[in-house]
């Protein structure tokens, strides 16, 4: 009972703590890991850019935090209250006080078909043919890439929900200084052209399908027809056949127990295709969490089993559609290696 009272005392002030927490505390806890403590970007896009803050409204920031960008890395923060999100928005705005633009309702009367053609001509080289954005994450300090900042997915349901017509009009008109985004005038685009492009972007609102998460197991398991030693050799051979380099073979508890005392019935085969790894890291530097590639062979109750992670299921953790596609291919590769090694 005393423990419950103590826990009650500890828990009771929490809502007050959360309610009084400054935007900075909430930002540091929830946003800084991706966007940086000072908003310079990282896995997330840079937020402290004056040209960004002067073109987006507080409503845009609020909606972005609340709904995220489905399939485009930025998660939806459903766990935060409206008050907490507003505090974060105020903190972000404090980097450039008075920068919030005054949004008035803008009605777009554009030619969608012409807008699509203009988009392909002037915008698609960065934003993609279908406005799907450039691959990768916000800004990458860790490896070279084509664009210094990930071009946003303008067809994304989260983006279109957050972005007002006024904001789109302003951004295309002014461009974004400090990013590759040029102003409309510098590209020779007139006001009518911009309206046409926005009309084309808006048509994605009706077409966007929600991103489904497949209910899959996080592991791939297959029983082997061979003994442990043969299965291990088969896995190595099959992995090599798929252009992977065997980088290490070790016992599961190797390094955790004294040398010579390892459980020799559990063997890990690590392998890597560095070209594939480089591509995956360019799409999302966090993917190393599930690398290097490995298959584990286990002798259990007289049977030999081969187990591996399921990349398809894991890619959903990253909210990155580009990575989903790659992980789907990777799952197929894992299954082929395991099948070849066990049957």
């Amino acid at each position, binding site marked *: 009972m005393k423990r419950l009272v103590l826990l009650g005392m500890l828990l009771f002030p929490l809502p007050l703590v959360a309610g009084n927490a400054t935007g900075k505390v909430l930002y540091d806890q929830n946003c800084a890991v991706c966007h940086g403590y000072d908003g310079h970007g*990282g896995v997330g896009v840079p937020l402290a850019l004056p040209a960004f803050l002067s073109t987006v409204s507080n409503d845009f920031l609020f909606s972005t935090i609340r709904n995220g960008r489905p399939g485009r890395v930025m998660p939806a923060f459903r766990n935060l209250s409206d008050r907490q999100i507003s505090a974060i928005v105020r903190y972000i705005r404090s980097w450039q006080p008075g920068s919030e633009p005054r949004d008035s309702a803008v009605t777009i009367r554009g030619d969608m078909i012409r807008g699509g053609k203009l988009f392909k001509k002037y915008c698609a080289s960065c934003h993609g043919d279908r406005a799907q954005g450039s691959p990768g994450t916000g800004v990458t300090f860790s490896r070279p890439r084509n664009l210094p900042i990930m071009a946003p997915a303008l067809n994304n349901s989260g983006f279109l929900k957050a972005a007002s017509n006024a904001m789109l009009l302003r951004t295309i008109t002014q461009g974004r200084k400090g990013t590759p985004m040029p102003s409309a005038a510098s590209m020779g685009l007139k006001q009518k052209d911009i309206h046409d492009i926005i009309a084309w972007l808006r048509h994605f609102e009706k077409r966007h399908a929600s991103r489904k998460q497949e209910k899959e197991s996080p592991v791939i398991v297959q029983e082997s027809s061979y003994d442990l030693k043969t299965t291990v050799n088969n896995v190595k051979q099959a992995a090599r056949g798929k252009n992977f380099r065997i980088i290490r073979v070790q016992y599961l*508890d190797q390094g955790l127990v004294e040398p010579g005392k390892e459980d020799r019935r*559990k063997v890990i085969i690590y392998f890597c295709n560095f070209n594939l790894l480089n591509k995956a890291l360019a799409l999302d530097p966090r993917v*190393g969490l599930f690398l290097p590639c490995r298959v584990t062979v286990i002798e259990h109750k007289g049977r030999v089993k081969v187990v591996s992670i399921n990349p398809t299921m894991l890619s959903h*953790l990253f909210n990155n559609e580009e990575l989903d596609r790659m992980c789907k291919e990777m799952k197929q590769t894992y299954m082929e290696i395991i099948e070849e090694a066990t049957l």
Partner: protein
Amino acid sequence: MRNLARNCLGGLLLMLLSGVAMAGTGRILMVRSPQMFPETMITLQNTIRKFGYKISRVQRVDIGLTKSGYKTDRYRVVFFGKAGEVRKIANRYPQLAAYLPMKISLFAEGRETIVLAADPMMLTRVVDAQALRPILRRWSSDLQKILEIVRKSDD
């Protein structure tokens, strides 16, 4: 029942008070260390050991990439665990061996370092056994505490 309530409340408190971000749609535990990569690596390894785990090896992802001709900043994966626990779980639930031992990835981001791990509670999607939950909950709690210490390390 009392233990279950204690564990649940402990986890809730940890989540509410720590700055460990739960990124994405699932369970990635992720922090930004204000320290540069080498200092973060030292802090991380020392902290892992303080929690009673043994580091089994460090995978130098960046070395493999640069040797193959790709450009990358520093990127490592630290594997760790407690021998008894790893053996016990792998013996009882062999399908979980794919995720053992635990690991934390870290990569340089300018003068700071990103440190991340998958939440072990994710493994309840593979095996949802009552006997397994306490240990996964403790691993999850330890990981969050380790990452929080790394996040608050001095620059």
